């Protein structure tokens, strides 16, 4: 295999500096093979057990059929994808290559220049490094670990080995298997017992890593009584030149702990976004997924919580926004494996301009999981007659002494609402955007302030030019 330089591959070379003169150092050939997987592991200088895990995952991937439910995935060509591009090579793309619509959205959102390059995959987020440094010192004193996954594996191998792939086994589904074989980047978070991390940990601020890689892998361990809020992504569009994004996120929330994981996904409109996210919650623990899906061509994502012991609580709050040519197939999965567990799924979807959304949810109550409570509420808003929304609420209840509620609504923005708001001086677009922002308000108010503001701004942008 042609490799120009592999001597110091690893974190140290994950520089975000954008230099036109850097030539690609290593790009795996297109397509997936054992050789490619071995090369990835070798470049990262991984322990043997991780290479074995990757190779076993590759075999799982090859055996697993493509999912035939959900969105149409037939256009994915696994032979036409680079499975590993070293991060500095990603940045060898030029700012000129970034599509104009993405640049103009950056403008409208007021994203600073340095951040634009970062989000477009062509530069570093210099300013944030400073912020991150001070955050990290504070966290380190408390024993909190917040690293990219590759560094996590190097510096905390025992912890990683103990938990990696235990929540989402490599054979869980075809895309989890793919991720397990070729993963790179992502976050490793460890919060010691009793530590409450009082600021959200934002992948966005993390130093020296390509956190928005194609196959990133995140593992979060929250010890008893601890709390952490992890925020992934950003509301600005993320430009990917590759057509497939397939992440795996595993979270372990131990007794009495609480974890919230917030994602705002805004991939560019040609990306297949197929992500597996799963958490286990033990006694009296709480796991909350807050999940916003705006971009991509196709998204299939169903954050799951396995409620393993009494008192565990799981929540999924999700928003999906589908415009022209987009299919957002999103939802949640709750497994009540113990008595006295509770779950809440709140899903809001918006379809416009021929876009398609689906809520796909699965609530399972295992035998003897008595006195469980599960609540599902999914609301769909259609902006026009060309758009579509579907609801697939699966329930598998094997215990009779439980309380299960399910409510689903489909509504349209009413002419009366738009007329009323216009009679106060708002333009038709502003009126539509306001009705939509009201529709998703129950979820937006759960976001950190800056994300909530950007989210509303983004909805306005989505509506611009959509009338008449």
């Amino acid at each position, binding site marked *: 295999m042609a490799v120009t330089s592999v001597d110091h591959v690893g974190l140290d070379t994950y520089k975000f500096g954008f230099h036109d003169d850097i030539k690609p150092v290593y790009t795996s050939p297109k397509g997936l093979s054992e050789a490619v997987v071995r090369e990835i592991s070798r470049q990262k200088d991984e322990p043997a057990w991780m290479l074995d895990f990757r190779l076993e995952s590759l075999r799982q991937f090859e055996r697993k059929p493509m999912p035939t439910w959900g969105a149409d995935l037939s256009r994915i060509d696994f032979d036409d994808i680079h499975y590993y591009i070293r991060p500095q090579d990603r940045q060898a793309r030029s700012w000129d290559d970034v599509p104009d619509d993405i640049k103009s959205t950056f403008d409208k959102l007021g994203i600073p220049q340095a951040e634009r390059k970062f989000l477009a995959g062509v530069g570093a987020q210099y300013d944030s490094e400073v912020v991150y440094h001070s955050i990290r010192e504070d966290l380190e004193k408390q024993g909190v670990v917040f690293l990219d996954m590759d560094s996590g594996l190097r510096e905390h191998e025992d912890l990683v080995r103990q938990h990696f792939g235990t929540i989402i086994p490599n054979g869980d589904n075809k895309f989890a298997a793919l991720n397990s074989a070729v993963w790179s980047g992502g976050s490793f978070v460890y919060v010691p017992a009793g530590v409450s991390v009082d600021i959200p940990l934002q992948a966005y601020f993390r130093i020296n890593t390509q956190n928005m890689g194609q196959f990133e892998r995140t593992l979060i361990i929250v010890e008893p009584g601890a709390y952490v809020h992890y925020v992934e992504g950003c509301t600005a569009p993320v430009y990917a030149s590759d057509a497939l994004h397939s992440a795996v996120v595993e979270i372990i929330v131990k007794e009495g702990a609480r974890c919230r994981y917030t994602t705002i996904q805004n991939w560019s409109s040609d990306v297949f976004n197929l992500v597996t996210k799963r958490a286990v919650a033990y006694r009296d623990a709480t796991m909350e997924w807050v999940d916003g899906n705006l971009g991509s061509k196709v998204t299939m994502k169903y954050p799951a919580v396995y409620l393993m012991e009494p008192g565990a609580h799981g929540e999924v709050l999700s928003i999906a926004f589908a415009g022209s040519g987009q299919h957002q197939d999103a939802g949640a999965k709750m497994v009540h494996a113990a008595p006295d567990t509770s779950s809440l799924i709140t899903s809001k979807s918006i379809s416009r301009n021929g876009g398609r959304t689906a809520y796909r949810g699965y609530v399972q109550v295992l035998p003897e999981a008595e006195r469980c409570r599960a609540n599902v509420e999914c609301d769909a808003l259609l902006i026009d007659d060309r758009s579509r929304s579907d609801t697939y609420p699966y329930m598998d209840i094997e215990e009779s002494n439980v309380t299960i509620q399910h409510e689903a609504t489909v509504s349209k923005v*009413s*002419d*009366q*609402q738009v*007329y*009323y*708001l*216009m*009679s*106060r*001086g*708002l*333009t*038709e677009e*502003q*009126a539509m955007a*306001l*009705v939509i*922002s*009201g*529709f*998703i*308000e*129950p979820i937006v108010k759960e976001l950190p302030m800056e994300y909530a503001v950007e989210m509303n701004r983004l909805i306005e942008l989505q509506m611009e030019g959509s009338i008449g």
Partner: protein
Amino acid sequence: MSATNGQMSAANGQPTLSIRGLHVAVGDVEILRGLDLDVPCGEVHALMGPNGSGKSTLANALMGHPDYEVTAGSVHFKGQAVLDLETDERARLGLFLAFQYPAEIPGVRVASFLRMALNARRSEEISVMAFRRLLLDKMKMLKMAPRFAERYLNEGFSGGEKKRNEILQLAVLQPDLAILDETDSGLDIDALRIVADGVNTLRASNLGVLVITHYQRLLNYIVPDRVHVLIDGRVVESGGKELVHRLEAEGYERYEDAVSRQEA
């Protein structure tokens, strides 16, 4: 655009609103059939009529509701022909409609909506603090609790709260002409008084008002300068405030008989 430019036309006594020969249809049914009406700046005019006479049709046609089709006639507001303008353009020009049945907008707080609406008619955005002061001031005038501003627009409001909220918007946005469409319906006597006091306060600042109502009740508190009787899509009589009492005593039958005789 300044919210107070109605004062210019007040100075020379020109009508703020001038309607000539207005015909309006809803679907195939013609509801307004040649309506003429002038409302000068700073005056309060009452438009009274029985159910089905076209009162709410006039309100919605003036505001530009897409379901109300103007088939003939003209409407000038502050000297400008407005029938070709969109609803929001009319609003920004200074026209306001207090709705009989305001729409509910879940998830949108009264305060944030009103700030957006106020900014829509200003060249420069009002600061958050200045807006806060303005809003609290107007809410106090209408005897509304401050937490009302944090509720979702019209969602779960009682009939009276909705009406009061409409008048709050009127007070904050300060248009040049306000159409009050059956604002008295659903109000108890205390709320009616508060709403009327609010309108009277605004009236002092040169607001033109067109009060649309079936009954005398509201007009006991908002005393009109002129009264117009609307029967079957036309103004059949105009007069001073004494007309209100005559209508209350005699009802609309006299006019309706006259109209049906005419048409027979």
